[in-house]
């Protein structure tokens, strides 16, 4: 059920008088704008309202349409003479006038969001109508693909995002897609705390080994992603989940469809402003529990056996206990031993040889540098949105401007976006409507790669704390020359991105025309698409402070252009015959997508001044690269919706798609689906049950087939040769400096690939209970993905050419989606409401390839030993490795096990205090066959819970999100919990929780700390790295106050609400890392569709405080 969040406009509130002057100012400007617009529309009005003369025996009718509750006039209400094509719409004052053939007809008044009414004319000349808002579940319209349908008659599976909730969450300034987390059942969203980082969205589980991104339809046009939409422009978001609802989108709907409709203007000219300012902060210090410099030295002494056997160490002396030096460069020097004047560093050097001349002087940070806190800080953010909208009988318009400035809590990240929108539509005469929806956005979004060891976040848990951020002269400090590991200075990494620029410019929109061929037939055509242009410029500075320095300076310039368009035409026939209601829709669609990438790198710059550095000024290497592709689709489709007596519902869809990604013979696919519903509560016998508290109960089921072509490139059909300077060029002349062109087999083609198919079954019921105060929507589904396109690795004997995609794998998802909502009026002044969106799925791979039962990924630092395995019978991205059964307590234990092992050795490199792995297959020794499934990153279920209360002018809301039963592979611990895992930062656990020979080790969780990496410690993927990632998060608490009506009236304000918001204030989890929400970052590291849930430095979700204002002026 939809619940009104905002209380009605009430009393005046004096304290806001301070703002009166400002508001008045805005109001004046708004009036000027609206006046100009009115003039514009007047011109249109005159030009299109030239009507034919009236016939003689006709009747003129006029009247006013108002909203029942408030008495406000309603603009844009459609009035049709039933049985004719005569009709009109109400104007700004809610007035209409209409000529009817005679006085015996019936007028139908309809308006989105209100109950339609049919009123007999009965000879009257004036008919005033009060419209009643439709509040019952299912009475709103849902967009179901090329048309709209009443939700109560909808037999497919759809999740309608509750827009009040969405708007509230959108105040965080984050991407639209991020707000879907927990707000729509069946939709799983995981993301990170990085502004602009696209979240990972899955609808009803995982459908393919490739791209699981749903199809986004905005105002009828498919686009790549909806992240650049302005959330304030969005009228509704609906998620089409099963075959029956999605199949009309055919080819690209296998991953589900997210349908976004943007706002249209209506009624009087209205100026809206909404704005927010806020602050983001991490609220975490040293989240990886990194030890102090002294503890690091102590650990070194233990692990290298210096406690009993002192040997000189360049930094910490040669005693039985280590002594922290005053300087790390010169290595281990003490105060007074260093000639500070000898310091010589040119931080921006351009001759690699200079690196050898530098004299670095870096003081030890004995307190310890908290690299996390050096990277992250509090940052301000703000968002402003202005829109002007209105509508009349001749059409409607909405213009908006949005500015969002969301600074990342990690330095030099953030998102700055400008967004413009113009939505207009015109009624040309009585039966033709044309219009356009257009949005343009400009985004700058510097991001850091996360979840990978080489990123600044990765370096923050790898760089030893004794290293200071800066050396004695304020240049970057690092491990150069000292035995302190090969990590980079993370602040240096980020500071050196300062000359980078990246800008995305995206134009999305369509133009459409709609014509009523008769009262029953509507034809519509739309042409639209998106144009995306991305330019980027990245400069690599040389480094001098680290152990492994990049000595070159390189400029990389990228330019991508993506353009796709969709052209579709539909004809819809609607009719009613006795108790039969039916609608038939047929249509065609063509789609074309093209992408071009051009890139260049150049190096050897004389100066690194950002105004100097460009492609012309490079003195060294210059390289270019290019890439392009195109693909096309053509489709025919049809749909029938039928209901009998409002009780028996039926829908059938068929779509015939052709795709350029397949060769000629396999190009076309046909995908049918059907669904039925039964409104049991309308049956006479239902009354016999005496279930008075049940207002509505209907069951529905659907079966259908959807195709998927997204996972194959167009080139898959062809066997191709290519040349590559890095791997097929050769100095055949023996030169020491130049190569000649050679070719290699780059791709093995498969002309036989065809459509992936998803067979989809959905069963569910919908019910409204207790006078429509409780609504429940329950669905169970079963999805069988067949002929899944996968490019299984070929035997090495085939060479390294790209293996073709073949229709070979299968996968299955089953799950339950539940939506539950309730509201209750406790008293006149107090309403409470709540809602739950429950999402669960079970994913199981049912086939990988002929003779192959699995493929594996992700070795990270377990070189060559992948720990993510996708295997038949398991969910995707399952974690795979040895099970740790404690530690080898003493040599006797090892000897005993060896004695029982067939090979004489129980476990490779077994040792006291090292992990003892479980002999899973019981053969008496540990081999590769003892690896097993040790974790699953897929959640058992996720759930969003919304709780709200309105009291007089106050509204309070709380939104919780939980994910339960998902495991995380904590790869960070490979770095921090094992001494030999490079010479980097270690956790305090290595001192407090590690196995110590001879001590009481009953509470030990880490193996012995020793200076050797072994198979039995950090050399093997094991259950040590798997943690439970379940969590509860209080995502949002909002307190709002709506200024009373009297105040608003007095100052000509339509509506004024102020609010404060706290986001992500509380996270309850047992996970030891900073943030249990592990998304993936498509740009680097992270993982993908079949390898996720791996934490190697997540950008943690920040906490957030926001103050905001919503204001509208009529």
């Amino acid at each position, binding site marked *: 059920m939809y619940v009104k969040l905002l209380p009605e406009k009430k009393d005046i509130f004096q304290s806001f008088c301070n703002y009166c002057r400002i508001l008045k100012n805005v109001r004046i400007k708004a009036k000027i704008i609206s006046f100009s617009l009115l003039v514009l529309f007047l011109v249109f009005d005159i030009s299109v309202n030239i009507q034919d003369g009236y016939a003689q025996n006709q009747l003129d009718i006029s009247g006013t349409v108002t909203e029942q509750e408030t008495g406000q006039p309603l603009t844009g209400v459609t009035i049709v003479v039933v049985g004719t094509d005569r009709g009109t719409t109400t104007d700004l004052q809610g007035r209409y006038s209409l000529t009817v053939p005679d006085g015996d007809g019936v007028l139908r008044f309809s308006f989105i969001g209100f109950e339609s009414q049919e009123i007999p004319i009965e000879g009257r000349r004036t008919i005033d109508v009060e419209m009643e808002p439709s509040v019952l579940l299912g009475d709103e319209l849902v967009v179901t693909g090329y048309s709209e349908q009443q939700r109560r008659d909808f037999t497919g599976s759809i999740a309608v995002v509750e827009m009040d909730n969405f708007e509230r969450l959108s105040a965080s300034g984050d991407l639209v897609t991020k707000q879907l987390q927990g707000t729509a059942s069946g939709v799983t969203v995981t993301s990170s705390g990085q502004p602009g980082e696209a979240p990972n969205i899955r609808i009803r589980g995982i459908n393919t080994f490739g791209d699981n991104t749903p199809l986004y339809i905005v105002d009828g046009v498919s686009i790549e992603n909806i992240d650049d939409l302005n959330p304030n422009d969005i009228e509704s978001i609906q998620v089409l989940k099963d075959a029956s609802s999605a199949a009309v989108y055919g080819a690209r709907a296998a991953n589900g469809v997210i349908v976004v409709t943007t706002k249209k203007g209506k009624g009087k000219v209205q100026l809206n402003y909404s704005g927010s300012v806020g602050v983001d902060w991490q609220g975490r210090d040293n989240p990886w529990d990194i030890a102090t410099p002294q503890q690091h030295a102590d650990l070194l002494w233990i692990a290298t056996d210096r406690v009993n056997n002192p040997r000189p160490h360049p930094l910490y002396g040669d005693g039985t206990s280590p002594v922290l030096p005053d300087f790390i460069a010169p290595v281990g020097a003490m105060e007074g031993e260093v000639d500070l004047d000898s310091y010589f560093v040119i931080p921006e050097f351009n001759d690699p040889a200079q690196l050898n001349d530098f004299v670095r002087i870096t003081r030890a940070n004995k307190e310890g540098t908290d690299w996390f806190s050096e990277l992250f800080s509090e940052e301000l953010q703000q968002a402003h949105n202005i829109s002007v909208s209105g509508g009349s009988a001749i059409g409607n318009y909405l213009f908006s401007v949005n500015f969002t400035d969301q600074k990342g809590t990690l330095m030099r990240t953030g998102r700055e976006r400008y967004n413009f929108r113009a939505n207009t539509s015109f009624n040309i005469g009585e039966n033709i409507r044309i219009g356009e929806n257009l949005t343009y956005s400009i985004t700058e979004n510097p991001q850091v790669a996360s979840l990978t060891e080489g990123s600044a976040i990765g370096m923050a848990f790898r760089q030893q704390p004794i290293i200071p951020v800066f050396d004695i002269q304020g240049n970057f400090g690092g491990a150069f020359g000292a035995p302190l590991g090969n990590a980079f200075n993370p602040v240096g990494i980020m500071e050196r991105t300062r000359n980078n620029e990246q800008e995305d410019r995206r134009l999305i929109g369509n133009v459409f025309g709609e014509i009523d061929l008769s009262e029953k037939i509507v034809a519509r055509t739309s042409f639209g698409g998106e144009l995306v242009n991305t330019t980027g410029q990245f400069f690599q500075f040389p480094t001098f402070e680290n152990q492994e320095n990049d000595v070159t300076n390189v400029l990389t310039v990228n330019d991508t252009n993506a353009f796709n368009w969709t*052209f579709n035409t539909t004809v819809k026939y609607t009719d009613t015959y006795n108790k039969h209601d039916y609608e038939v829709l047929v249509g065609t669609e063509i789609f074309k997508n093209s992408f071009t990438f051009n890139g260049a790198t150049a190096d050897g710059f004389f100066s690194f001044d950002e105004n100097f550095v460009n492609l012309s000024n490079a003195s060294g290497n210059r390289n270019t690269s290019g890439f392009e592709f195109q693909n096309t689709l053509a489709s025919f489709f049809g749909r029938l919706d039928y209901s009998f007596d409002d009780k028996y519902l039926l829908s059938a869809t068929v779509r015939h798609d052709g795709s350029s990604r397949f060769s000629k013979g396999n190009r076309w696919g046909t995908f049918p689906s059907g669904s039925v519903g039964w409104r049991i509560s309308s049956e006479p016998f239902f009354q016999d049950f005496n279930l008075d508290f049940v207002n509505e109960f209907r069951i529905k089921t659907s079966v259908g087939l959807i195709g998927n072509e997204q996972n194959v490139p167009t080139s898959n059909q062809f066997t191709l040769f290519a040349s590559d300077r890095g791997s097929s060029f050769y100095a055949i002349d023996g030169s020491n400096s130049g190569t000649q062109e050679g070719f290699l087999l780059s791709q093995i083609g498969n002309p036989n690939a065809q459509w992936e198919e998803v067979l989809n079954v959905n069963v569910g019921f919908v019910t409204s209970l207790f006078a429509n105060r409780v609504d429940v929507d329950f669905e169970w589904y079963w999805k069988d993905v067949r002929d899944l396109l996968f490019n299984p690795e070929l035997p090495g004997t085939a060479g390294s050419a790209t293996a073709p995609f073949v229709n070979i794998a299968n996968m299955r998802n089953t799950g339950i989606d539940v939506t539950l909502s309730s509201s209750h009026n406790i008293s006149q002044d107090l309403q409470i409401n709540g809602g739950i969106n429950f999402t669960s799925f079970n994913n199981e791979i049912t086939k990988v390839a002929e003779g192959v039962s699995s493929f594996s990924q992700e070795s990270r630092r377990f070189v060559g030993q992948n720990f993510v395995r996708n295997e038949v019978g398991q969910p995707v991205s399952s974690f795979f490795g040895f099970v740790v059964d404690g530690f080898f307590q003493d040599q006797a234990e090892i000897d005993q096990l060896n004695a029982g092992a067939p090979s004489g050795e129980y476990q490779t490199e077994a040792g006291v205090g090292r992990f003892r792995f479980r002999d899973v297959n019981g053969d008496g020794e540990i081999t590769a066959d003892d690896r097993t499934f040790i974790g699953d990153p897929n959640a058992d279920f996720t759930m969003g819970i919304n709780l709200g209360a309105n009291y007089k002018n106050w509204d309070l809301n709380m939104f919780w999100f939980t994910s339960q039963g998902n495991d995380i592979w904590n790869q960070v611990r490979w770095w921090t919990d094992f001494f030999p895992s490079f010479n980097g930062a270690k956790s305090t656990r290595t001192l407090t929780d590690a196995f110590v020979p001879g001590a009481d080790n009953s509470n030990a969780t880490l193996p012995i700390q020793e200076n050797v990496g072994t198979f039995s410690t950090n050399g093997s993927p094991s259950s040590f790295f798997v943690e439970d990632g379940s969590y509860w998060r209080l995502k949002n608490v909002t307190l709002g106050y709506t200024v009373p009506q009297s105040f608003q009236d007095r100052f000509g304000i339509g509506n004024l609400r102020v609010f404060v918001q706290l986001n992500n204030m509380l996270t309850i989890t047992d996970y030891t890392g900073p943030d249990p929400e592990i998304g993936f970052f498509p740009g680097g590291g992270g993982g993908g569709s079949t390898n996720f849930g791996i934490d190697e430095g997540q950008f943690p979700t920040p906490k957030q405080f926001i103050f905001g204002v919503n204001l509208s002026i009529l």
Partner: protein
Amino acid sequence: MFIKKTKYKLLSVLTVVSGLLLLYGCDEFLTEPARGSLSEQVLANEQGVNSQLIGAYAKLDGGGWDVPGLPWEKSQHNWIYGDIVAGDAHKGSNAGDQAPINSIQRGNSDPSIGFFDSKWQSLFEGVTRANAVLGVLQQVEDLSPEEINSLAAEARFLRGHYYFELRKMFFRVPWIDENTEDVNQPNDEEIWPNIEADFQFAFDNLPEVQSERARVNKWAAGAYLGKTFAYQQKWGEAKSIFDQVITSGVTAEGVPYDLAENYWDAFDPAAEAGNPEKVFFASQVANDGTGDITRANHGAMLNFPFNSPFRCCGFFQATQDLVNSYRTEDGLPIIGNFNNESVVSDQGIPSDELFEPYDGTLDPRLDWTVGRRGVPFHDWGPHPGERWVRDQLFSGPYAPKKKVYWQSQEDEFADNNQWAPGTAHDINVIRFADVLLMAAEAEIEAGSIDQAREYVNRVRERAARPDGRVSNDLNREFAAAIVGSQDEMLDLEGLNSGNFVVREDLNSTFTFLGGNVGDINNWNEYPEPNYEINTYPPGSLGSQQQAREIVWHERRIELALEGHRFFDLVRWGIADREINRAWQFEATVFPNTLAPGATFTPGKNEYYPIPQRQIDLSVAGGEAQLQQNPGF
């Protein structure tokens, strides 16, 4: 109906337009070509074949990102599979770095270790490229049969090489050639005959001289054919072909085969053109304009001293056992007993503390092979010891040298476009010294031990050339100063710790350790090493078995750290004895390295395991086509 005519017109136009677009679309609209690539037909001509042939050469170094795996996993240097495993070198760096090498070094070569899969795939990519040339040659029309044969011979030579590498590493190898339709073939047949056939065809059809010097020629094929015989102990056939190669062989440039004048010339990128020692090599380039080092000894990028002008990464550190094997007595190697005394190292001595280098007699080739403290590290000055070593305790004090560029050649032959260096040094697969010593083996087996002695002496004579030794003069070019007396040295100003000064009066080099320049105790003197090397006098090779041991030792020290040792030990049947001996000794000298516990298990470790991944991928009809090697 009530529709006005204009609206009908509009509708008709819309319908017609969209309908036409769709009709047109069904065929034309849905046909999209692949962009940025070529089809095989385009390459079926002389130029296309040549381009593909160059592609087949391009895999010789094992580099390139087209095959998964990091460069060193698949590199033709074989420094992991040929040298470290044999006990000639430690992995180096520190314990956590490239941890799978730890297991390989210790003899724990698990089939799941990804390194083997990378190497396997890289070599089969080479095979695939050679097969692609042979395949397209069947389609070309603009070439004469002779030209086709010559190009086919080049391709078959390369294929023979890739299979040779596969056979010596992986033992059981499936055979795929240009006529094989299903690449999933079993590995149940010996492929030596096929390799022989490829080299024989190459020997019969290749020209002696090629227009480009990095191409293979007839004599390279002959040498490789001999090597193939030697690996099968077909000594008679080996001797016969080696005789021809040694007497008549020329390089692709037409230069008669011989040893280059000085030992380092075999490695010097400046001496590559016209070099008589070049039999077969992978040509490498520095600064090819890509800004990447995939063509610049990518697989050796880790093998430079750490924390040095080379920046990274401190891998591939020689063992004490290898260093000791260069000790001489009366100028001759101490066969079998060289560890009775150790070459003194600076293990445990910080770079700013005094170190007194070893003064026993040594073979001069040691200091072209291994970097050690106090000895000129090419022209970079005396190796400073511990400062240039990442974790001395873990990996010993030594540095590799044969692929390290000189400071004077840095601009030309070093490629500093990546985080670790690339270089232009060719990768020698077969150099003439290698041929001579294999021929010596063949002579011993034929009973002509004196002929073997002559071959060995030819190699030793070159090594003994006084002009070809590491000397104090190497330090002169980049010394902080060249002085004639101690007073002059102690008066120098502006020195930093680590600067070095050439002393002409003593023919030695002094490195300043820091502190007061005027105090002689702050200076470390490094005299020239004590080289003594002679040839074997007539009759001194002893019995046939003694002679074998002498040639085996000579191969070790002549070709050390060039990727041969392990494969030689296996074919000689002494891998068990030598490798276990080396690690047991090493464990006594450097107990904190990986040496303790490193073993060679006979019956298993002679070969590397067939990559588990490849066995998994070979399953057809429920059964794996590839069989694992014995012992795994």
